[in-house]
């Protein structure tokens, strides 16, 4: 292990860590607002990469089918539950939100694809297509059990991940994809070759963390989300709808996962089932941050990336063992050091 190699490994680890950080921040965001540990997050990132690759190949991506199916399911569920409650006046609005909006997105993609759009437009299209998936899944799967225990929500979330992987195979096929690099630039930092892609990944991670900070501290919606995270009942008494807060959290989280998917697509081969490990490692990072603090989750994710990079050099066969073994001391330290809150005791 020379200094050169250490530098290369560190940069590789930071780049990987930045991707994990984006997903980890999204995971924490959704967890704090809805109490759901959203395991399928990595899948969302992988699907974004696959969507972009399909758009690059001038094909209509499988995501379109996924969004249409989910939109129809969510719409039916929403209308039925409204009808049961006798709130017929809210039905048109529900149809607009759950069916028409996602379909408009699909329509936009379908129309734009006719004109062979350039790369930046394709990236925006891929993100647009991915955005509705999580909120729709939330409506179909999590909303009916919103008041259940964290453990039940986690179990459902794991089941949902397996369902999504199956759907991914159906819609995207078994082959891996790799997209065109976003930039072919490269710079030298202290004699170490750093690709422009790495710089881009880091910048994106920093920009998004910064934007989130501003959003939560300086906008009304952000404050409402924070209120919901702190105390659902209290927030409801103040006129904040937890359901809507959840939808916004899922939308934001999808955006983060989508961006990380776009960023890793050129540097890694992404398969329909690549998302799980990505999500799991990001989750380890989020755990290090105690599932509560964004800077903590980001730091934890960077740590996971760097450790993974060095582990793959030291002992490539045991790489994942090393990464996941890290969880044990962290969990021990967390459980010994933290005060248990009232809510957890009730569960």
């Amino acid at each position: 292990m020379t200094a050169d190699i250490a530098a290369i490994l560190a940069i590789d680890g930071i780049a990987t860590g930045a991707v994990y950080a984006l997903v980890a921040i999204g995971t924490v965001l959704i967890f704090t607002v809805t109490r759901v540990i959203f395991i399928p997050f990595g899948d969302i990132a992988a699907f974004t990469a696959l969507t972009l690759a399909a758009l690059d190949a001038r094909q209509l991506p499988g995501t379109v089918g996924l969004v249409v199916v989910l939109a129809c399911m969510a719409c039916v569920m929403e209308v039925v539950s409204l009808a049961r409650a006798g709130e017929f006046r809210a039905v048109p609005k529900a149809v607009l939100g759950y069916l028409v909006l996602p379909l408009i997105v699909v329509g936009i993609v379908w129309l734009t694809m006719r004109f062979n759009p350039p790369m930046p437009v394709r990236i925006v299209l891929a993100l647009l297509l991915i955005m509705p998936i999580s909120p729709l899944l939330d409506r179909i799967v999590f909303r009916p059990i919103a008041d259940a225990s964290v453990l039940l929500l986690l179990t459902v979330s794991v089941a949902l991940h397996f369902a999504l992987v199956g759907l991914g195979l159906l819609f995207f096929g078994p082959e891996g994809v790799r997209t065109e690099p976003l930039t072919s630039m490269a710079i030298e930092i202290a004699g170490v070759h750093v690709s422009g892609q790495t710089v881009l990944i880091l910048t994106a991670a920093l920009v998004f963390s910064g934007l989130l900070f501003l959003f939560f501290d300086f906008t009304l919606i952000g404050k409402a989300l924070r209120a919901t995270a702190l105390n659902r009942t209290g927030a409801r008494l103040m006129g904040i709808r937890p359901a809507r807060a959840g939808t916004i959290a899922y939308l934001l989280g999808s955006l983060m996962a989508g961006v990380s998917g776009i960023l890793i697509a050129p540097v890694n081969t992404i398969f329909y089932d690549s998302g799980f490990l990505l999500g799991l490692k990001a989750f380890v990072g989020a755990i290090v941050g105690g599932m509560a603090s964004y800077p903590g989750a980001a730091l934890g994710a960077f740590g996971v990336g760097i450790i993974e990079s060095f582990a793959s050099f030291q002992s490539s066969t045991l790489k994942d063992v090393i990464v996941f073994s890290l969880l044990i001391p962290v969990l021990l330290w967390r459980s010994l050091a933290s005060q248990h809150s009232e809510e957890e005791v009730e569960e």
Partner: protein
Amino acid sequence: MRKMLSLTALIGGLVAASTAQADITIGFVTSLSGPGASIGIPYGRGIQAAMEYKSEVNGEKIKLIQLDDGSDPSAATRNARKLIEEEKVDLLIGTATAPSTIAMMAVATELKVPMIAVSPVIGQPNPADQWGISVPQPASLLVKVVADRMKRDAMKNIGYIGFSDAWGDLVYNGAKAVEAEDGIKVLTNERYARVDTSVTGQILKVLAVRPDAVLIGGSGTQGALPLLALGERGFKGKTYGTVALVNPDFVRVGGKSAEGIQVSAGPVIVAEQLPDSHFAKKLALDFRAAFLKANNVPTTDGFSAYSFDGWMIFTTAAARALKTAKPGTVEFRKAMRDEILNTKELSGVHAVYNFKAGAYHGVDERALVIVRLVNGAWTYQP
């Protein structure tokens, strides 16, 4: 309810009637989902092509039952049991990944049903109780032919990087076996998982030993990952691999970094470039035509051809076994096994097959040619 009963009776009657005709029943397992799907799907298409090419033996119809094992050995085991115990198959063919194939082989041996494996199988069978054979070129032979080529290209120090699974072990051990006799030196043993997204660390370690050439023990699309990392680091040496890498997505994902890699592959990969005198030339072109007809896409990989060769072995053995026993009986299973192990000089599209009890594989060096990736196409290197 009564309607249901009569319907069940009717279906039962139909099933009984169809089995009375004594079709030969084949149980085929492949990986249509999971990490092995990128090679499992071609295996499935190869069987469809083989059915297209030959769907009966001596006038007996062949009935094919296909199941998916999801790239999971325990599912493959369940599938094998189900096919034997419920569907009463005469022969098993399977499956896409090495661990699942080994699991299926264990079931076939236990329940005494012949099996044609379309993935490599390691080890030595007990000649008295051998129920399976394996179609593909064994890893040791694949690696031996590549190693001979490395020697011919005057390569000395070899870096190795491969999958952290049975396949990675097969290639590594094959390279190590050649090392003893051939004077090439394998200096690294780096591994990565099929789902990994970065191999920077492993590649740095490979490059640290300053290798003349790097040998890749991966398969399919993910086999391109080390090549991409080598390309990033500006590696100027040669790269070598095995037929497991050969599929269109490997070429697509590998792009410029995969250019120039030399792999040992079955002759079917470069069928149209073979000399007319080559044993595989005509059959390989027939196979391609049947594949196109069955699947409406041209074949571009070597995996589907293993299924096809397995089918060749099965149909020639079945033609002889039918003389002594009827399909659907224990005697037929035994006769099938004996006849499969009696295969002599059978030309397939990958190899000339000679099986005998005491070995799973039945191919020799005629089964391999070296092909090089030039401008995204595999070219024959005599």
